[in-house]
């Protein structure tokens, strides 16, 4: 084997080389295509998650199972009971004793119950005459008990029962030809999500989770794998620069993430019927900045650990769970305690959830989007900058 002349010194390697960068990107792309786990995480998992969030989780309640204990046998009481039963939102089950109905609530067979007390019609009539005489109003003669361990459902029960009660009172007043009590009727109209279907905001939100998994988990894993297999040492001892190495990890996964984003939007829109009212540019802009932020997190994790198991654990705790809990995707940020709200400000998912939900339901609402874009730009600069600062060319 012949060697070339030894004195030929190759060009100093400190400047960015497009050839090296392209070679690294090519290698990364081949690895993505050939590795079944990255295909699984990038294409199969998102679709599965979309369907789980789209059909598996539903924050709307259909007809709520509600108990009824009627202790009064007067026509008034029977009338009200039948109006409750007729409510489209309530599934009324009648019980004949307090212990039986409490037992049913404890066993979660019902979500709440209504008691019509034995003095219902007496009190009702007294109240009505007091009202007619413009005197002070007696306390409401029915009692409602709900299951506070599920506050969301408890609120529904309360709302539905209250609605049915007011409805009945109004009808009663009208049928008697009395001057109806000041007709305060609530009419709910949902803006932006006319059907108030939770799927319409859960699915865009779940795209955030999917992008986090791809950006943070996949990058953290692939770099840890390079350390475990010893290929990182081979790379670092070659003339590759820090910038080339980092960019070659960012660019291929950026494109993968954007493809997945578009795939998710397509599946959500065309298969699952979720509206997307925004235009392509803001969607791509928000998606890009968010993806860069989570890629930054993934790369940051990989500088902290060189073991695939550890890096997946860390990615779960610093990227996936916050994206789930603190992004406003499932839980309202405004109702969180102040310190947790403060933590949520550096979570990129928070801004992307707001942006993509806006883009899906409202359209190009620039004031909201502008804020999200600015913050996403900040988080991507923050995490990528930290990575660039902490990545050492050397192994220590």
């Amino acid at each position, binding site marked *: 084997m012949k060697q070339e002349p030894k004195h030929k010194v190759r060009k100093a390697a400190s400047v960015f080389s497009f050839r090296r960068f392209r070679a*690294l990107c090519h290698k990364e792309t081949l690895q993505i295509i050939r590795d079944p786990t990255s295909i699984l995480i990038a294409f199969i998992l998102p679709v599965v998650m979309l369907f789980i969030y789209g059909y598996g989780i539903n924050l709307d309640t259909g007809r709520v199972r509600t108990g009824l204990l009627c202790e009064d046998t007067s026509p008034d009481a029977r009338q009200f009971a039948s109006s409750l039963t007729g409510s489209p939102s309530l599934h009324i089950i009648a019980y004949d004793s307090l212990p039986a109905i409490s037992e049913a609530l404890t066993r979660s067979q019902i979500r709440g119950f209504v008691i019509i007390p034995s003095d219902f019609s007496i009190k009702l009539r007294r109240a009505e005459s007091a009202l007619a005489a413009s005197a002070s109003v007696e306390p409401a003669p029915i009692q409602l008990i709900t299951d506070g361990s599920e506050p969301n459902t408890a609120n529904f029960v309360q709302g539905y029962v209250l609605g049915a009660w007011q409805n009945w009172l109004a009808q009663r007043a009208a049928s008697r030809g009395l001057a109806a009590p000041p007709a305060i009727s609530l009419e709910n109209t949902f803006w932006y999500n006319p059907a108030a279907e939770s799927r319409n905001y859960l699915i865009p939100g779940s795209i955030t989770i999917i992008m986090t998994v791809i950006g943070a988990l996949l990058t953290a894993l692939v770099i840890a794998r390079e350390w475990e297999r010893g290929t990182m040492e081979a790379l670092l*001892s070659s*003339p590759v620069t820090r910038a080339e190495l980092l960019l070659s990890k960012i660019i291929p996964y950026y494109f993968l993430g954007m493809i997945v984003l578009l795939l998710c939007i397509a599946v959500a829109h065309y298969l699952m019927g979720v509206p997307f009212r925004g235009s392509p540019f803001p969607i791509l802009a928000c998606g890009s900045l968010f993806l860069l932020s989570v890629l930054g997190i993934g790369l940051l994790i990989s500088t902290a650990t060189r073991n695939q198991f550890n890096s997946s654990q860390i990615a779960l705790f610093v990227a996936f769970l916050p994206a789930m809990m603190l992004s406003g995707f499932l839980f309202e940020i405004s109702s969180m305690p102040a310190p947790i709200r403060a933590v949520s400000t550096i979570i990129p998912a928070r801004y992307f959830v707001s942006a993509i939900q806006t883009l899906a339901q409202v359209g190009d609402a620039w004031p909201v989007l502008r804020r999200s874009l600015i913050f996403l730009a900040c988080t991507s600069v923050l995490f990528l900058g930290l990575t660039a600062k902490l990545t050492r060319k050397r192994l220590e």
Partner: protein
Amino acid sequence: MSPAVTITDLTRLFPAAPKPALDRVSATIRTGRITGLAGPDGAGKTTLMRLIAGLLKPDSGSIRVFGSDPVRDAAELRGVIGYMPQKFGLYEDLTVIENLTLHADLRAVVGRERDETFARLLKFTDLAHFTGRLAGKLSGGMKQKLGLACALLGAPRLLLLDEPGVGVDPISRRELWRMVGDLADEGIAIIWSTAYLDEAERCDDILLLNEGQPLYAGPPRDLTARMNGRCFLLPVPAENRRIRLAELASRPEILDATIQAQNIRVLIRAKTGSESAHFKFETGSAPAAPRFEDAFMDILGGAKTGASALTHILRDIPRDGATVIETRDLTRTFGDFTAADRINLKIKRGEIYGLLGPNGAGKSTTFRMLCGLLTPTSGEARAAGIDLRHSPARARQRIGYMAQKFSLYGQLTVAQNLAFFSGAYGLHGAGQRDAIDAVTNCFHLAQYHGIKADALPLGYKQRLALACAVMHSPHILFLDEPTSGIDPVTRREFWTHINAAVQRGVTVMVTTHFMDEAEYCDRIGLIHRSKLIAAGAPEDLKSQAVTDENRHPTMEDAFITLIERSGL
């Protein structure tokens, strides 16, 4: 000739470690020579390689590579250093040619120069027919050659090879030596790190390290020459060879005693004055040529143990000459890959049987089937008279198993590991306490009882793993690569324990890729590409390789001859 690398008083500490990884190491590495970086695991070999490659910063002292600082002048030096990390640093899901192309791009080998270099390297490594194959699907020897080819792109003047010979079959290892020898002849400086001392002996120069301490730097034969006149071979009949070995090893004037084929090989301690040169050891003994390992043993102060206390722990098993391990056409497939192909073994009580073969040959698969940890695809396996297919749990009670890399609980202390493993084997109460006390004394573990297994020095991890495997007084001991990466003194101690166990009637089955260790066994089986290609006493196998040119073949020569003869 100017040196390629000059190392002066180099020290490197790692925050978590109590001792420095390298402690004031000085050496000169010259061009055109193979410099061996020798020492057991934890000696500091890889740390030194990384320091030379500029991947780590020294804490004190200096390194100059062709006159430049590897960290400060990294940009300039990266073009002239080729580095093959452990496990070869290949992308397993890229093909041979894709791996080469990546490294060519990274090292600016382009255009016609690339075509020529690829043609030359593919011819040199004999990989031309496999360019489209994924690196992960190559055999160990082919991976090793591809790793070398990648490190050679860009025509380095310094080649760093980190344990290139580990676990590779002997034919590939021999070819690698030839290739690296050619490179040295062209004037490249080569650093070859190794834990095999027979490999170190073949280098032009050597830097011997142990636990970060430099022990020797210079040509290996100068070190070996110190042992001239102190090595003897004593022929001993097989039936009392082990008793004689234990007796000799306990004598104070003897540095080391090992079994080598039908002889016991004895090293005498250095003595002051001239008498040592004329020491006539014993009638019937013949002087033997010293080896590098002998010199290493001398520096380390020789084997420390005479007799093993293991004889007092293990119950005596009557030697009835029964066959305790038997397999018939034992086969295991994983998908379309046959990991063990119709293996037939018959091992008698009180035998030491060694399975010798490169990584991936099927040693561990066979082992795991014999221990009842893996169900055979076809064929039969019986251990201690129990069919492993039907009642593996019952068989395991009579088996002691020491897994590769010592399957200890790293977060538990030594005492907790002992308590757990003795409990797992059904010991309890006074019996359990006695067993723990006995192995604690036997393996000198008392001082480490409160320490987590992860924090133990390598030699003590190995002792603890063996202790855990013998507490329940098993009839059969399975030891999967028990001594890889361990210094020769600890290795010797380990074999003393094995010999003691065998004297109590225990049957021992051991896998190894140390060729010399194979000679401590009564019989060995050579495994190559999932098949048992030969089995027999070490001397019988070696005698099959005798030719006119080579009258005293080594175990490695025998292995190569038998592989070639098997036609696999």
